């Protein structure tokens, strides 16, 4: 049983494993990213781009796209573990559950941030968005993504071994992430100067959300791995 600095080194180990798997399999790059861009196109078809609705709704559409893509990324991330009893193997490996959890969260956060970076380009090109307030935008993207990954990893692990996981995960996760969607969207609107108020309270709310779920997840992952 690893002790002391073990949690962090376990987390790094798991994160590296996940990122390596992604680099080799390229599911995120080859399937989730095209899906996300497709959603951006679908929104443009649904909301006439000539009437300015698309431009007005850009931050919301961006984050809805991120949420849908996050569900897919999570499915993938935990489908890896659920097959061939790998979750049991992880449990038996002696790594701390909190370390495994934080590792999954780290890998997910990195994957999602990369996805968001490409999506931002997509939005800039397709929806003709001009970005202002860059520091706020960065803070919001980072904190929102940590929150999504933190809450998502708990429910991703919980749903992983269920046969109905494809339908269950969005039902469980998306209502939980409603405050993230609200805060991230509003914060981005501020940074795009659509709303004349400070955007930092939104970033703070996202930070609290992320902190709460990272703490909760670190504690809940032990019973989750052992019994659920």
């Amino acid at each position, binding site marked *: 049983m690893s002790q002391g600095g073990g949690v962090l080194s376990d987390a790094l180990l798991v994160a590296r494993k996940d990122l390596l798997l992604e680099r080799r399999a390229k599911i995120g790059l080859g399937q989730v990213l095209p899906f996300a861009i497709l959603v951006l196109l679908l929104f443009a078809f649904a909301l006439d781009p000539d009437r300015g609705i698309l431009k007005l709704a850009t931050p919301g559409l961006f984050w809805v796209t991120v949420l849908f893509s996050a569900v897919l990324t999570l499915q993938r991330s935990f489908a890896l573990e659920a097959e061939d009893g790998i979750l049991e193997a992880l449990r038996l490996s002696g790594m701390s559950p909190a370390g495994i959890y934080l590792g999954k969260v780290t890998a997910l956060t990195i994957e999602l941030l990369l996805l968001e970076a490409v999506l931002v380009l997509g939005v800039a090109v397709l929806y003709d968005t001009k970005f202002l307030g860059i520091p706020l935008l960065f803070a919001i993207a980072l904190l929102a993504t940590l929150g999504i990954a933190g809450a998502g990893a708990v429910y991703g692990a*919980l749903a992983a071994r269920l046969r109905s996981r494809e339908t*269950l995960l969005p039902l*469980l996760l998306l*209502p939980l992430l409603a405050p993230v969607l*609200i805060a991230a969207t509003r914060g981005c609107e501020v940074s795009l100067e659509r709303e004349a108020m400070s955007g930092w309270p939104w970033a703070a709310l996202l930070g609290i959300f992320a902190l709460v779920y990272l703490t909760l997840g670190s504690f*809940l992952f032990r*019973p989750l791995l052992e019994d659920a």
Partner: protein
Amino acid sequence: MTTTKTQSASNLSPAPTGTGSRGTRVLGGFALVFLVIAVAYGLFISPADAQLGNTIRIIYMHVPTVMAAYMAFIITAVSSGMYLWKRTEFWDLLGSSGAEIGVLFFAVTIVDGALWGKVTWGVFWRWEPRLTTSAVLLIMYIGYLAVRAIPADPRTRATRCAIIGIVAIVNVPIVHKAVDWWRGLHQGKTVLGTIDPEMGGTQLFAMYSALIAGLLVCVWLLIHRFRAGFLAERASDLGLDQALEERRLESSPATGEDA
């Protein structure tokens, strides 16, 4: 009477035959009395409100149902935490009973709230903080029930549900804050869901008797649901024992050990 006495301790006794007991019958009686009082005062005796008119009669129902739902959800949250600590069937069953009754009362709350909105605002739904939070909350607990309904061994299922119960309740203040800020800039608070301090005597009486009735009905349902859940577990144990016994009998009667 002696049989009902043993039934009231049915949580522990091995073979309870029903979900009723003297305790629940007394509780149910009280609930019924308060319901009758609440209906009489709420619908007939108390006057219409000066500002809200007759729609205040919806609020006599709305406040109790939302209070009962919150009570049930808090019971679920506490039970979820206790389950992860104690790992006993009691906390698991209490938690899932709370979620089920909570969803029931919450759905009723949203429906009667929407009816009130239609009369008062002219629309069933407004993106008002409390309504929006409620909608998100209801769906979170429907997710809990969805997981509950998936067959699994009792310990696995109980752990999954306990985790969802904890995560859901922690999310409530965050959702509320987000939605509050989101809509807070655009409109003021609504009267719906608050007890107006200027309510007159019979109105206040109607409100409080409805509140007591609502909470009593909720507790009464909760106890019955808990016991029904307990009996269902015993029934499935029994089914398993029977199946095991049958398989044993199928094997060679001489050794009785070959499977």
